[in-house]
């Protein structure tokens, strides 16, 4: 195990940012710390980097106890949400910083910087100042700067959070490819479940200072440990006694299937290739319950001839992931 976090607790006044968190992050993998804002995931990352200190608990990196080490002795690369570029230095100087601190010979620095700029596709910008780069380019530069010191682990704090949607999507694919090339143990923090699912080998879901679940994206999606994980990883709706994904609800236009819930379509929205429905169940089967959300492919909806006000019967699809609904709120 590359990073071993044991019983870490961190309080800000009365607020428990992290509450007795233990987690092991495997070597060579790309791990996402996923959770809502203020859930403690950034704090955990900063404690691993040594930028914050835990009130109690230990952090070990590659077998060495790093709990009391200052950040500059931990050999971690850190990438900040707002890039933290050195504004007064050129792109090449930024990338060279860690190497120059380590008194690397000049020729070696030059070679490494050249390689890294190549890797992040910024070679032609080597002599520019960071202020002349776009947000995405700045973040790639920050990544090259962090990789320059050949860190044991690479830590990224919401690395794409400040970028617009399109660049974000490009960069996350690029990060995945980069990781497949470089294989450095990487941990990144995100509150975007899609980003985590798409990029990470393993996801640690953190909420209210606790680890809710650890697993591969598929495990988390298919076998959520609890209601929170299920709700955080995708849309959830309630059908009778269970909660399930809207696309796991089967729609039929005639009764007859055992355990089906009759209702009426109260909203119908077409978004691209899918159709989203809101179905209000008949009062006798579910009085006062929220309307059920259903998502189905457009072709399917057309085949059933669904319209606003149509009567439908809903069942949970075979093999659907379900968790028992919480006691009616």
């Amino acid at each position, binding site marked *: 195990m590359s990073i071993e976090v044991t019983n870490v607790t961190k309080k800000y006044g009365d607020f428990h940012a992290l509450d007795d968190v233990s987690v092991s992050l495997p070597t060579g993998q790309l791990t996402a710390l996923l959770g809502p804002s203020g859930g403690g995931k950034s704090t955990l990352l900063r404690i691993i980097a040594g*930028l914050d200190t835990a009130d109690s608990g230990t952090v070990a990196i590659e077998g060495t106890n790093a709990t009391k080490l200052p950040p*500059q002795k931990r050999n971690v690369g850190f990438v900040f949400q707002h890039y933290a570029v*050195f504004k007064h230095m050129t792109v090449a100087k930024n990338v060279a910083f860690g190497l120059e601190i380590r008194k690397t010979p000049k020729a070696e620095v030059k070679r490494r910087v050249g390689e890294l700029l190549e890797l992040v596709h910024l070679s032609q910008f080597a002599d520019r100042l960071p202020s002349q780069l776009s947000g995405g380019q700045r973040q790639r530069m920050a990544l090259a700067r962090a990789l320059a010191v050949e860190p044991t682990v690479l830590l990224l704090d919401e690395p794409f959070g400040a970028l617009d949607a399109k660049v974000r999507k490009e960069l996350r694919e690029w990060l995945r490819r980069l990781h497949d090339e470089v294989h450095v143990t990487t941990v990144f923090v995100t509150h975007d479940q899609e980003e985590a699912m798409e990029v990470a080998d393993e996801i640690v879901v953190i909420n209210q200072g606790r680890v809710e679940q650890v697993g591969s994206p598929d495990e988390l999606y298919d076998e959520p440990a609890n209601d929170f994980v299920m709700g955080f990883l995708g849309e959830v709706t309630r059908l009778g006694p269970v909660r399930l994904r809207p696309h796991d609800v089967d729609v039929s236009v005639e009764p007859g299937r055992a355990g089906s819930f009759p209702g009426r379509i109260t909203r119908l929205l077409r978004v691209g290739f899918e159709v989203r429905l809101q179905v209000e169940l008949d009062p006798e089967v579910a009085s006062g319950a929220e309307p059920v959300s259903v998502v189905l492919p457009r072709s399917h909806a057309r085949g059933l001839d669904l319209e606003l006000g149509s009567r439908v019967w809903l069942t949970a699809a075979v093999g659907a992931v379900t968790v028992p609904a919480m006691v009616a709120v």
Partner: protein
Amino acid sequence: MVEVSTPVKWLLRLLAIGYVFLLVAWPVSTIVQDAFADGVGAFFEIFQDEQVVNALALTAQVALQAVAINLVFGVGISLLLVRYEFPGKRVLSALIDLPMSVSPVVVGLSLLLVYNGRDGWFGKTLEEWGVQIIFSGTGMIMATCFVALPLVIREVVPVLTEIGDDQEQAARSLGANARQTFLRITLPSIKWAVVYGVVLSLARSLGEFGAVKVVSGNVANQTQTATLVVEKQYQSFDQTGAYGVSFVLAFVSVVCIVVVSLLRPKEHKK
């Protein structure tokens, strides 16, 4: 920006320019006139006066040392105020503004009370160790440091706050220790604020009068600075001398500020 009608715009400009002209530009320019009233030759004659030359040299010495001390402590205190949390931080911040609001004469008197050799709270002990503060260069430097203390800090603190500590943290994570981080990251970022603070301190230190007058004893050729010479000459009806030295003082300050505003990169260029 709020749209302002053209006549109002011109009226506002006229008011601002008129105010600065009547208060600053005109009076200062008359110094130049009077300094050269009896010709350039008469102006340069004042440098024949040993008393004037000694006073100018002393002013330069005191001002440079005070600025050097304020530079080190100013940057240090700024870092302390912006980057660290500690009890009493707000009190410290308020104390730093004190020299702005307290009259320099009061500063001089208070230094006298603490450090004078006969009955000062601390001065007696120091005197026994052979250190004289009052009526010596040390006391004059202390008084000058006191009055110029806020100038570096008030320039540097906002810049430090604005740049935040992201870059410093990045440097630490890349292996830099505290000294390397300060020299390679923090200092270059606050460079212009420091330069501006130093120039303001220098201008202020050259012109200090009240505090220095009280602690120096005003002994000609020994503890008499340029501003004190100006006063003495003016009182003994040596108008040319007084205006001449005044001109030198004003000229140095103006040159400092002009040089810096030319050197300083344009703001809002980030």
